[in-house]
């Protein structure tokens, strides 16, 4: 492999890893406070991409307006899903909520087929993201530069929100003790909505950038990335935001680099994440950054 194609693969892996990281955070945050794997998260990602598509094609909005509207809409949907499908089950056994999540996932996928249509749609890539940039003989599509930059901006914003705002503190408190949080006068349902909103925003950002990197949209597009990002969250240590980011990059790199170095395996591209999941569960079930917190009674 020559150095040019290596760098092409490298930039590809960085941008794919960034997307996985953004989506994986949504899984990990929701798990952190509700102990729920939100299987609908991959479909929220799909909704983000489709909303952007319609904003740009049907409503002819300027791309940045369209993207913001799509992200906002997706956040509202994320919050709505929690209110309708998870909140009524707050005091039910965990498995009921899990089944509800799987149901929502199927519902969104099927509604997607009915409303958006099963035929693939081409994402209208704004010029600025579609340029081919040539640096030292290596040609890279500009979206591959934008993705990591936008991902980093999102991550910094999220870290600020989670670590330095009162609502962020409440989110972290909820990950340990809902009842004690209520005794502080914290409106638990509001904090949960906020968490779903944040996770959905990140999923929408991921979905839109995914659409620009792999510009075919179809209603089941969230399924495989959703599963891989769930694995990324587990690999990184579920409940841990930094872990989700690490897990996202690990999976992005393994996927791109294995195919790059061993092209014969390219048909197994989607399998690597699952193999990694099995290995992690055997070797380090708490995940790379998962820790057992010492608690005193």
């Amino acid at each position, binding site marked *: 492999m020559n150095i040019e194609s290596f760098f092409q693969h490298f930039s590809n892996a960085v941008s794919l890893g960034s997307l996985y990281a953004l989506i994986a955070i949504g899984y990990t945050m929701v798990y952190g406070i509700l102990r729920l794997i939100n299987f609908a998260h991959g479909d929220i990602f799909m909704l983000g991409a489709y909303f952007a598509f319609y904003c740009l094609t049907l409503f002819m909005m300027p791309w940045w307006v369209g993207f913001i509207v799509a992200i906002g809409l997706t956040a509202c949907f994320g919050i709505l899903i929690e209110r309708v499908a998870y909140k009524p089950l707050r005091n039910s056994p965990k498995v009921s909520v899990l089944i509800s999540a799987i149901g929502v996932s199927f519902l969104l996928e099927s509604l997607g087929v009915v409303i958006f249509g099963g035929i693939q749609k081409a994402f209208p890539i704004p010029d600025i993201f579609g340029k081919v940039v040539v640096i030292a003989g290596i040609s890279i599509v500009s979206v591959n530069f934008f993705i990591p930059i936008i991902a980093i901006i999102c991550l910094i914003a999220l870290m600020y929100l989670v670590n330095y705002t*009162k609502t962020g*503190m409440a989110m972290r*408190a909820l990950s340990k003790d809902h*009842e004690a949080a209520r*005794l*502080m*006068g914290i409106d638990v349902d509001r904090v949960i909505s906020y968490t779903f909103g944040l996770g959905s925003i990140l999923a929408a950002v991921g979905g839109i950038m995914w659409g620009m990197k792999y510009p075919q949209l179809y209603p089941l597009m969230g399924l495989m990335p959703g599963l891989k990002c769930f694995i990324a969250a587990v690999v990184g240590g579920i409940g841990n935001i930094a872990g989700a980011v690490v897990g996202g990059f690990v999976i992005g790199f393994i996927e791109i680099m294995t195919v790059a170095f061993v092209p014969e395996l390219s048909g197994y591209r989607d399998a690597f994440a699952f193999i990694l999941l099995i290995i992690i569960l055997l070797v380090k079930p708490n995940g790379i950054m998962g820790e057992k*917190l010492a*608690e*005193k009674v």
Partner: protein
Amino acid sequence: MLKIEGLTVNYGGIKALKGIDMDVPEGKIITLVGANGAGKSTTLRSVVGLTKITSGKIYYQGQNITGKNTVDIVRSGIVLVPEGRRIFPNLTVYENLVLGGYCEKNKKIFDERLEHVCTVFPRLKERLKQKAGTFSGGEQQMLALGRALMANPKLLMLDEPSLGLAPLIVKNIFEIIQTINKSGVTVLLIEQNAKAALEIADYGYVLETGNIVLKGSGVELLSNENVRKAYLGIA
């Protein structure tokens, strides 16, 4: 300030409280003593709406708060320090205190309260940036009290503050409770450590399997024959 009338709570088929009446006058320390499983925690949890009430009424400052939701009750000034302290171990001391004062939006008032809590608990002040989970039991109890004070309670309810603590620290905690009370906060204290509780209480209730069997001033109950036998281990 707080008035409980005919409070009954059933957990499934089990009657945890069988109709108790209590009165917590403003500015006093009232204690509820009793053995394990007598219904002490259930009483406090019912007041803040964490446990569903079967029948009975709870009045706070003349208003019926029966069945109100926890957040509203806490915001009206009733703060419960739950059994086992329940501090947030993954958060720093400072963050725990911030959440204690979650409902206070005014930064200036918030800072004054933080200052006040730091004077009452100098040990917390030294360790604001430390993770609360690394604290010893006594320190966690102080943090739990500090966190409760951040909410500026009018009525502070304490569930077994001495549980699992060394005698010297228990003494310290009870002194702090008295100090808090002197600053104008009404205290409702429940304890298995009946002696310590009755010594600082203005008035006490003895709870036995869901019924109040005795009541009287702290001094009266301390000298009561039955109380001495059953709870103080003195014949």
